[in-house]
């Protein structure tokens, strides 16, 4: 036992002496968090729009004004022809192009003409046509931007219809039998940072624990000091655990720092329970430390260790739902993600932060992390033992 403690003590001393490494360990993740917190946004803002208005009447001008004044869009002016509009899309100057046909005013008048009997509007024919061209390269942004634009246009149309009906003395309720009141829970302003920042914290903790553990063992391998320790009475398993223990602590510290930044700087509310968070994080770090140890058995040099961990991380991160929901992946890929510890911890941390979930809701995710962690860790230790022995 004392021997084991000695290994841990030695490791701590080594970490403390490496001033550059220590600085990198603390400063780099913080800097990353600050930049990434702003950069990784899936919000769709400032969508640039241009219009080709062939009608030019007061109604079409009113419609354009509504789009122009909406803060979600950047209005890039009028195009003189359809080709010009298409050219603006081609050159990437705009993402949305609207074409208002020459007969817009006439069609609008027809489509919203109040009639005293039957359905109190138009004659059930098509409405006044507006053509919209969307830059569809990025399916996500295109979908959201399109949704915003049609919401704005339909609102305008509803208001227009309402005023026409009222002017004709018909109750507008007949057109709108329901009113829909949407309320967003957990993240009322739908801020991207509230979702991404806890995810970045997962990323940082993973990098620090896996990478540093791997590096610290491989460095001793490279320097030949691992051989020296292996011939002492210390058991290989104690070496491994002694090596991993300090990085477990560093991981916890890193997590606390990351959570503080998330709350203080980015204003992300933490609605969960800190004790539960610590428990879940410990369960997760079994896996990330295990990956670090496993890497050290595969790599001979630090450069190799970096490449291997990079491979792992890329896989895990892309299949974690960090960028896009796991539910959208094809079935077999989704099955793969069950073995991905990052996926579970990502979900746990996000739900704890925003929804305030705890053991009652997240025990399955917790069990999954423990199961994966125990597997990875025991495999890594076995492999280390065999190499050492």
């Amino acid at each position, binding site marked *: 036992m004392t021997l084991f403690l000695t290994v841990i003590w030695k490791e701590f001393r080594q970490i403390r002496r490496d001033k550059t490494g220590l600085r990198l360990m603390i400063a*780099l993740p913080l800097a990353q968090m600050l930049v990434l917190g*702003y*950069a*990784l*946004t*899936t*919000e*769709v803002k*400032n969508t*640039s729009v241009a219009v080709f208005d062939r009608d030019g009447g007061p109604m079409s001008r009113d419609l354009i004004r509504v789009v122009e004044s909406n803060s979600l869009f950047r209005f890039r002016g009028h195009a003189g022809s359809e080709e010009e509009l298409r050219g603006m899309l*081609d*050159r990437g100057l705009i993402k949305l192009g609207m074409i208002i046909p020459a007969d817009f005013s006439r069609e609008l008048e027809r*489509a919203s003409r109040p009639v005293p009997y039957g*359905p109190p509007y*138009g004659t*059930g024919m*098509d409405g*006044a*046509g*507006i053509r*919209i061209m*969307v830059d*569809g*390269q*990025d*399916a*996500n942004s295109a979908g*959201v931007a*399109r949704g*915003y634009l*049609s919401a704005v246009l339909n609102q305008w149309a*509803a208001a227009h*219809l309402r005023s026409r009906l009222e002017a004709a003395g018909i109750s507008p309720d007949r057109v*709108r*039998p*329901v*009113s*829909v009141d*949407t309320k*967003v*829970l957990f*993240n009322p302003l*739908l801020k991207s940072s*509230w979702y991404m920042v806890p995810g970045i914290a997962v990323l940082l903790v993973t990098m620090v624990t896996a990478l540093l553990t791997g590096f610290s063992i491989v460095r001793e391998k490279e320097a030949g000091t691992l051989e020296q320790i292996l011939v002492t009475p210390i058991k290989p398993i104690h070496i491994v655990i002694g090596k991993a223990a300090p990085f477990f602590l560093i991981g916890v510290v890193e997590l606390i720092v990351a959570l503080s930044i998330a709350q203080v700087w980015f204003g992300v509310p933490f609605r969960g329970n800190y004790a539960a968070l610590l428990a879940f994080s410990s369960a997760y770090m079994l896996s990330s430390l295990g990956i670090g140890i496993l890497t050290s058995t595969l790599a001979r040099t630090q*450069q190799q260790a970096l*490449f291997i961990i*990079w491979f792992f991380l*890329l896989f895990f991160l892309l299949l974690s739902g960090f*960028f*896009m*929901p796991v*539910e959208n*992946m*094809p079935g077999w890929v989704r099955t793969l993600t069950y073995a991905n510890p990052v996926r579970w911890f990502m979900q746990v941390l996000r*739900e704890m932060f*925003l*929804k305030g*979930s705890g053991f*009652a*809701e997240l025990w399955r995710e917790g069990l999954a992390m423990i199961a994966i962690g125990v597997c990875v860790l025991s495999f890594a230790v076995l492999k280390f033992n065999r190499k050492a022995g």
Partner: protein
Amino acid sequence: MSLRRIATIARKEVRHVLRDWQTLAVVLVMPVMMLFLYGYALNADSRDIPVMVELPSPTPEGRIVAEKIDASRLFAVVGTVSSAPDPAELFRRHGIRALFRFPPGFSGDLRRPGGAGIQVLIDGSDPNLGTLIRNAAEPMLLSATLDAIGSGQPRVLDLRTSILYNPDQRSALFFVPGLMAVILLMISALLTSIAIAREKELGTMGQLLVSPLRPIEIILGKLIPYFFLAALDGVLILAAGRAAFGVVIAGNPWVLALGSLVYIFAALGIGLLISTIVRRQQHAMFMALGATMMPGVLLSGFIFPVESMPVALQAVSRALPATYFLEIVRGVILKGIGLRELWAPISVLFLQGLALTAFSVRKFKVKL
């Protein structure tokens, strides 16, 4: 400058690459692996989002509307409750993304002036999904209710949307061409800087420099193999992307080739610059990964839209070669545009490459 001597260095470098399994894995396996990962993992197309319905009195109208919600492409009703005293708990426990709450007198309200009110509670924790649901809920409920009471729908506007460049809205079409920007950067900047830093670290660079070889010959000899490797990877991605995801080049392949060449030139310039600054492989790796790959992936618009970033980060984005290359590669492959629209990003990349190489070669000479 002698071609023969450059070729000798290049041959030596090729041997290095062929003997190193790691580099080979990075060059050959990584691009294909990343292609599949990005192609499958990043799918923005949400459908059958799990939702619940709170229906206090199951009248025919209420049930019809609930069925319409379930039948829609976007939502799947995973449960119906008659009351939800603590809605947040439903979200936490069942992982639903929205709760549609109908009032007790829904059917009666529909025929009364003022109409019925439906409340939609949305889980905003994933803002992307939340926005999608918020935009879609009202039009869907309105048309479902009008259908339920047998009234036609007012159609004041008829929005005819045409989706350009990626009409089926497949995420793979967006990510696969973009991946070229990442892979080419990795080969040109990361591998090159490591290769040069390795010779420095091992001291063999000093040996090369005291030989009759001139510094420019050493640099060119080292860069040429990576130039071809990068070009090979570009072709590899295009071929695999076409076979697996049906990504077809809509525009002129020669414009794409030209764009790729100037991009590789600029990226090699970055690799060269890093290798003149650092002395050790590890530092080269950190710089290439931290200062080149990360911004190249995250700030270039490869995944995240640049327009939504803060102004300062947008400025950083405008300085990255990857940003310009993405414009070129997506422009040619998806939009089918040519030199007339793309001369600007191509010239920017060429100038960046020129500036970076000129600066690095000078620095390299001074340091010897």
